[in-house]
């Protein structure tokens, strides 16, 4: 290891990293801190530890409805975007075809388009089509922004999936279906699980599209937005925010573990590690 360069006796890189991390995460960490604070106003000094804001959530029917809506939207969006992602990733890793690069760029584009623009555009189109705004329209919107993530995760899992693995299975007497069940599916399963978790998490946390495209049913972020108007409800929002933060963190960690497992499997049979 080389030592970090110093100037005026100070390790500037370390200082920069510290400031950066503090700026990035301190505000987020205040959320759980105040959610356990026994005071309706988020302010220092802290006045005591309590679970009451969390208990209060369980007795708020509107919150429970929002949680159920979010779960349904999340599952639907995750499954749909993963299915679409499997098709796209398979096509892009297995075949070489005309327009492959532009196609892949188009799939990835929602990542960089301003979400509010997508939201407004989708709203206009859906109203034009005469679609009733509902959780279904939210799902459609979420699929749009989840697919790029799904495709990215799945391509990593499929890439390097050695075609000869399927041939080896056939060579050993297995049928096409048996090969899919015994080789293809177990090989790509980690990537699929990872894609499901990532897209579920994105859908769970997404606000703008949900806000524009939902009818009367609120998802959790939309519910939180509604609650912010009432100062007295702020501790409850902090508690809910903390739960979502932890849940997202846990889901993405699991997704990353699976993604790495998928990448490891794909790499090992290239014969290059020999």
């Amino acid at each position: 290891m080389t030592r970090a360069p110093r100037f005026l006796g100070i390790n500037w890189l370390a200082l920069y990293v510290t400031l950066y991390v503090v700026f990035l995460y301190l505000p987020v960490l205040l959320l759980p801190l105040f959610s356990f604070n026994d005071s309706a106003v988020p302010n220092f000094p802290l006045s005591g530890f309590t679970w009451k804001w969390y208990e209060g959530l369980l007795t708020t029917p509107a919150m429970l409805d929002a949680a159920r809506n979010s779960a349904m939207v999340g599952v639907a969006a995750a499954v749909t975007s993963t299915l679409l992602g499997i098709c796209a990733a398979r096509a892009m890793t297995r075949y070489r075809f005309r327009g492959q690069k532009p196609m892949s760029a188009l799939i990835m584009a929602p990542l960089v388009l301003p979400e509010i623009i997508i939201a407004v555009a989708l709203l206009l189109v859906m109203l034009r089509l005469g679609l009733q705004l509902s959780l279904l329209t939210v799902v459609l919107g979420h699929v749009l922004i989840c697919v790029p993530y799904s495709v990215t995760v799945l391509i990593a899992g499929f890439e390097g999936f050695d075609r000869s693995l399927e041939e080896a299975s056939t060579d050993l007497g297995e049928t096409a279906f048996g090969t899919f069940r015994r080789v293809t599916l177990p090989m790509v399963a980690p990537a699929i699980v990872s894609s499901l978790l990532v897209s579920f998490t994105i859908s769970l946390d997404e606000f703008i599209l949900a806000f524009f495209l939902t009818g009367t049913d609120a998802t959790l972020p939309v519910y939180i937005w509604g609650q912010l108007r009432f100062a007295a409800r702020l501790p409850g929002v902090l508690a809910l925010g903390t739960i979502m933060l932890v849940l997202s963190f846990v889901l993405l960690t699991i997704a990353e573990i699976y993604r790495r497992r998928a990448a490891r499997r794909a790499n090992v049979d290239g014969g290059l590690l020999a």
Partner: protein
Amino acid sequence: MPDRPMIEIASVTRTYGKFNALDDASLSIRPGEFFSLLGPSGCGKTTLLRMIGGFDTPTSGTITIDGQPMLGIPANRRPTNMVFQSYAIFPHLDVEQNVAYGLKRLRLDPAEERRRIDEALAQVSLAGFGKRRATELSGGQRQRVALARALVMRPKVLLLDEPLSALDKKLREQMQVELRTLQKAVGITFVLVTHDQYEALAMSDRIAVMFGGRIAQVAAPKDIYQRPVNRQVADFLGGMNFIQAALVGENGTAIEVETMGFGRVTTPKPAQWSGKGGAVTIGIRPERLRVLWDQETARHELSGTVVDRHYFGEITHLVVAIPGMDAPLSVTETNDFGADDIPVGAQIRIAYEPDALVAMAD
């Protein structure tokens, strides 16, 4: 029929669009033979191997294995198993599960399955490795797993697609010996694809040399090396001095030619002999030329000047200009008597045996 071939390739052609990957190839491989398909990349050797295994279909021509035509029979119902170039070890299974993969479909009695797995692992010296995962194996070990996984199926033919190309030199040479020993032990017909001429020479009973989708020569290693049918085969199998010669006479099996430097020589008629008179190419391998020391004499000798030398540890390549010859000769000499001390510019004498000279088609 005891002499029925194990594999009969009859006029097999494979075209991809306008490209002829394989052009009217015919070949007969005997039961229990270690047979190699040797050639540069793109010569059609892998295409032919994959067609035997059922992963590709001939555009025309037929493939017969053990008397049974293979037309329309898919890879999973052929009496062949393959060792893939990348080994294709299933990374989500351990060694034992990999070896058992094909057996599972046979629904054997568990004790019998166990016995066959252990036997296969022992054959490739992997006893005790059953519970290892593919990620924990070295390249050589993964290759052994691929071998065991194929052999456990007791195929009539084992197909090997460049199985040693990913291994380093030392391990490769060790595996050549092991593969050869294993093949003799199990008695299964092996068909090996390789671009490495030393590998083919070291392991095979017979070799088919292929160029541009055509089979140029089929013969035992020594015959292929010593009696190549044409310049291309001669060149691919190792160093060769090519000498222009003029035909002076011929009978049924031999031709007599007048060469530069080597004088008048009689050699067996090449297999692809056009029968027309005129220019003929004569070849002699560099190691068939020997440096003569001090008072040593030989019945047939040449003398010339060393114009270049290349040192290779156990041998030295000398490039020797011979008066009256238009191109210098390459001479390979082992360094046991100090060939590595011969300087450029030295006058030396070279001995040869006339029967080492071989006539070939261009």
